[in-house]
């Protein structure tokens, strides 16, 4: 954070990062109606955190989103996804058979909708957490990226 020649970059990033995060959530929750879904939303949210760390430094980012939290989210997402599969098993259906989630009659859609929404949350968590973890593993090995490194 030495020198002031990145001031434009920092001001623009400060304005853009919340919009990128909001767009990520839009992509996630609008995935049933428009292109996108948990995977793309997870990547966009991860990019949002990575952009912050490229501009404001990795140490402040690691204080905000700790590496442990990123790993926890990645594992939790995968467990949520698998959990829906076992939920369907427990209700007497096949693995990931969403129609069995609430033991609906034929033609009901609540199970399908719930299943898709829950697994998309799992995908979002797993992808965002894994991407941030990978970035931390690379970027965390150097304390500060100097200007002459670019």
């Amino acid at each position: 954070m030495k020198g002031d020649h990145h001031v434009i970059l920092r001001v623009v990033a400060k304005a853009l990062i919340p919009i990128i995060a909001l767009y990520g959530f839009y992509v996630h929750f609008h995935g049933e109606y428009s292109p996108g879904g948990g995977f793309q939303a997870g990547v966009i949210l991860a990019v949002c955190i990575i952009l912050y760390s490229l501009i404001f430094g990795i140490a402040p980012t690691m204080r905000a989103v700790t590496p442990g939290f990123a790993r926890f989210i990645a594992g939790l997402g995968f467990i949520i996804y698998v959990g829906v599969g076992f939920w369907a098993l427990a209700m007497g259906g096949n693995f990931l058979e969403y129609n069995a989630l609430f033991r609906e009659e034929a033609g009901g859609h609540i199970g399908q909708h719930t299943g898709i929404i829950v697994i998309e949350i799992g995908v979002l968590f797993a992808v965002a957490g894994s991407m941030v973890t990978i970035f931390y593993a690379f970027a965390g090995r150097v304390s500060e990226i100097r200007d002459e490194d670019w």
Partner: protein
Amino acid sequence: MTGFEGATLAIDLLNITLLTILFVVAIAIARLRSLFAIVMLSGIYSLVSATWFVALDAVDVAFTEAAVGAGISTALFLGAMVLTSRTAKAEKGATRIVPLLVVIATGAVLIYATIDLPGFGDPTSPANTGVGVDFIERTYPEIAIPNIVTAVLASYRGFDTLGEVGVVFAAGLAVSLLLGFGERSLGASVRREDRLTAPKKDEEES
């Protein structure tokens, strides 16, 4: 010239322009030695590919390419580049010719294979008469969400997507295990510094 022919001509021009940009960027990536420029150009390559996928009506693929190829890959390559040197070593004679021949041979085989493929948007192609029509007819009555791609990915092929998520998770785990998420990573030292600086402030106050 009718309106339909004009639209076809415009799409052809767009395709040719985008493919030419892709070709130029690919040649530039192969010729350059500066890793930073290569990383940036590969991001541009992904972005132009994504634009081209939109022109081919594959919006979901384009979205993923833009987010993953141009977004996260570029950021991860930048992170990896910081750990290594800034320029690639120049190849010697034989190592330049052999890959070129391999690429030309593979390209010729792929172009030969496209002769058998149906034309773009051909209504009688297998994709447009078999499984594609089936999904369009069945998705709304069975799942009742408008985006067929999401329905296919999350419900019909839920098992497949579970595998993909597992692969992404495994990749994160493998990179952390290889590069270290314990004492050697910055995360640990950030937490140590926090612990070290916290008591100091107390001493100054007292």
